[in-house]
């Protein structure tokens, strides 16, 4: 059903965005030279209006779910990359100095110190990305990707309020639910690292 499709679109695209965005954020934090380009690129992606991005991708990828997912990944990148960068860069320099001075490798520092301490902030980025994705995914219906937008567009075409709401309300609830769940997880992580 359409709700499941919608959740699927959001989950897959956010997942991919994390897989790409997290390493990019780490890179930006580790190499000062990379920070500018990485953040600028993610920023550029953000400024393109979603329907326009869909339009740009269709000639290349065709219509359907994968085009929508590609676009959703693009929009999810900025919050994830930026928050990963901020989270890691925000780790107390004394902690990093002590860690290096004691003989931790860069990998050990990342795994044992930086990522755990940045987890709360990174999750906040994932939360923003998820909520934004739920919204943009409603437009995915316009390019044949399915999801709750289907009800909305059909309802608009048929001037049927019930149909519109059948899509709009679950979408809104989904966004609120995702925000609440991830917010809860984020608060638990931030508390632990304090």
């Amino acid at each position: 059903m359409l709700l499941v499709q919608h959740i699927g679109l959001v989950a897959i695209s956010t997942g991919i965005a994390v897989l790409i965005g997290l390493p990019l954020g780490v890179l930006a934090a580790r190499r000062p030279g990379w920070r500018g380009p990485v953040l600028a690129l993610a920023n550029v992606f953000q400024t393109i209006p979603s329907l326009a991005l869909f339009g740009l991708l269709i000639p290349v990828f065709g219509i359907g779910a994968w085009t929508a997912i590609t676009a959703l990944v693009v929009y999810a990148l900025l919050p994830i990359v930026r928050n990963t960068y901020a989270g890691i860069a925000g780790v107390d320099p004394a902690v990093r100095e002590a860690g290096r001075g004691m003989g931790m490798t860069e990998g050990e520092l990342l795994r044992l110190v930086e990522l755990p301490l940045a987890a709360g902030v990174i999750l906040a980025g994932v939360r923003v990305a998820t909520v934004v994705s739920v919204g943009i995914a409603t437009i995915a219906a316009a390019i044949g990707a399915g999801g709750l937008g289907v009800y909305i567009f059909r309802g608009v075409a048929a001037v049927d309020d019930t149909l519109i709401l059948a899509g709009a309300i679950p979408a809104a609830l989904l966004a609120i639910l995702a925000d609440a769940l991830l917010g809860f997880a984020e608060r638990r992580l931030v508390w632990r690292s304090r």
Partner: protein
Amino acid sequence: MASARSRSGGIFEEVNPVLEVRDLRYELPRNGRALVDGVSFSVGAGETLVLLGRSGAGKTTTLRLLNRLLVPTAGAVLIAGQPTAAVEATQLRRRIGYVIQEVGLFPHFSVAANVGLVPRLAQWPRDRIERRVRELLTLVGLDPDTFAARFPHQLSGGQRQRVGVARALAADPPLLLLDEPFGALDAITRLELQREFRALEGRLGKAMVFVTHDVREGLLLGTRIGLLDAGRLAFLGTPEEFRASSLPEVRQFMEAA
């Protein structure tokens, strides 16, 4: 020259002097300015060399050259007769204790986990780490039963630095580097820790390099004093010799004390 292996094994056998520095030089990459300009000294087991100097004299830079957080432009650092350049950096640092002014405890690790970090990285068995942590906390004046499970944010500044020292000693390194460890503490706590540290120095028998800009602290804790001035050693000798010296750089320091 080599005698029995040190208690926890490792890459440095017991050789005296533990630390030898020859004509150490460090130039800033971007403009070639020498922050450390031909420094030589040696430190034996049981000795504490205090690196004294005003801000910008090159004390912290020299210290960071010893554990290769900075790479020397010229000169050599030898630990137990072995050039540090020949040892992989992270392995080297695990055999050197490092205590910094800001302490840098991991806020998400308990006190026990902080102290046991290097043993954990070296993959010691868990019970051995636990025993060592308890031993060290007691050594630095923190009751293990009270403090092992606490977190850094629950500790006072003085307690945190005690944990910092315990952490540096965990893998029983032959050399300890300390960068103004008591500088961020209030005067009373600082004095308390200085006195305890002095007692500890005698018991541990380790080679130590202790950076400070506080003359009194230096005279109290050092077996020898090295006065750094613009990257060079203006004076190297015992505290008594320091007090008696008529060198202008020394007089300047003693007057300002």
